[in-house]
């Protein structure tokens, strides 16, 4: 009996999942069979490939990659200095809190909505999509960067302070080199994920 009680949560979750599957039609054999047939029709229509659209697709893909590159670079350029100003080991909360709030606000708005904002400002086209991606990248890279900078060993900061280094010198000789691994790898990660985001923002080209 005790065994059954201890397993009750798993049983309940399993039953709930089965019930949900039934409600959304995943346990309907007729529907599943029709789905399989439709999938086969879809797969067969992919062959032979229509080579006539390759040139159009290549052009669109090149534009997508350009948008991702521009968006990431602008986002990175905006994020790095602001993240430094948002670093609590360098500035007081009076300065870091508004910066973090701004980064948080920017981050809460998805790239697609930013793109729509820039469509209003710049009209339809890849420029609006690129700026949408740039702003979203700026928001989340900014957060990742100030967290990376705050993870820099305190002894390194104290050492650079101790030789008379001011805040700019602390950034140059402690935070940026010691946090380099993080800010470079997150930058690369951002460029990869913005390629995906760009495919959504590409609708602004229409």
């Amino acid at each position, binding site marked *: 009996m005790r065994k059954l009680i201890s397993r009750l949560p798993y049983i309940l979750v399993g039953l709930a999942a089965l019930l949900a599957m039934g409600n959304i039609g995943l346990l309907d054999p007729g529907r599943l069979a029709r789905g399989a047939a439709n999938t086969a029709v879809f797969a067969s229509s992919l062959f032979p490939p229509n080579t006539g659209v390759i040139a159009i697709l290549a052009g669109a893909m090149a534009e997508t990659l350009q948008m991702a590159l521009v968006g990431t670079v602008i986002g990175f350029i905006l994020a790095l200095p602001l993240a430094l100003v948002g670093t609590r080991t360098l500035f007081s909360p009076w300065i870091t809190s508004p910066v973090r709030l701004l980064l948080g606000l920017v981050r809460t708005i998805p790239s697609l909505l930013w793109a729509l904002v820039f469509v209003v400002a710049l009209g339809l086209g890849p420029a609006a999509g690129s700026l949408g991606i740039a702003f979203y990248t700026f928001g989340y890279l900014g957060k990742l960067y100030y967290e990376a900078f705050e993870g820099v*060993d305190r*002894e*390194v900061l*104290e*050492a*650079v302070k*101790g*030789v*008379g*280094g*001011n805040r*700019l*010198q602390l950034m*140059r*000789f*402690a935070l940026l*080199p*010691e946090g*380099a*691994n993080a800010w470079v790898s997150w930058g690369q990660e951002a460029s990869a994920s913005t390629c995906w985001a760009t495919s959504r923002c590409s609708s602004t080209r229409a």
Partner: protein
Amino acid sequence: MEGKVGRPAIEARDIWLSYDGNRPVLKGVSLRVERGQVFMVLGPSGSGKTTFLKVVKGLLSPQRGSLSVLGADLSRNGSWKRCPGQRIAHIPQNLGLVRSLSVMDNVLTGALGRTATLPSLFKAFPHPYRMRAREFLETMGIGHKAEEKVYRLSGGERQRVAIARALMQEPELILADEFVAQLDPLRTLEIMDIVREIASRGVAFLITSHEPELVAQYGDRAVFLREGQKVHECPAREVSLDMVKELMA
């Protein structure tokens, strides 16, 4: 090996410090370090050694007592003043080196306080500073590693970089926090020989250590701290393992 007598490098009287206002970490510590003296601070973990070094460096302000460092009275009129920072070099326990910068760049950071901000941001340090940094590295026996990144160096080499950076500050006082604790015996002796050589030029050292043999061999004076209190002070050559056992028990 007693240091030369004159205006003291450090004169601390009745220093009291508590982090939380209740439990004092330093309880009335007094000591006097002469210029050119290698002054060793012994004590178990948590005895207040590192805290005392941070007080001397000006990173912490005590609640009570008086402190004079390199002739500057830091406790004047009841409020604590900033230390004459650049003349005091601090080598923390983990050295505080920037691992992804080159050895030369790390040593040159010792001159940041004397270099204009804008050129320093582009690592455009004045030529005489570069020459001096290279000289220090040669003296430390790692001149050939000047362009190497610090993370590629061994523990002993890193120690030498930290000392070269400290010397680059042109200090009159060097505070070193168990800075040879992670080295093998041979490297430790090499580093301590360098310490003695620098001290002979009039630079005072305040070094925390756990090793009585090292203290006896290389120190001028030694002080024992236990639970934030000074329990004994003597010429360093008198320090022995038995004495440590007796005082720390």
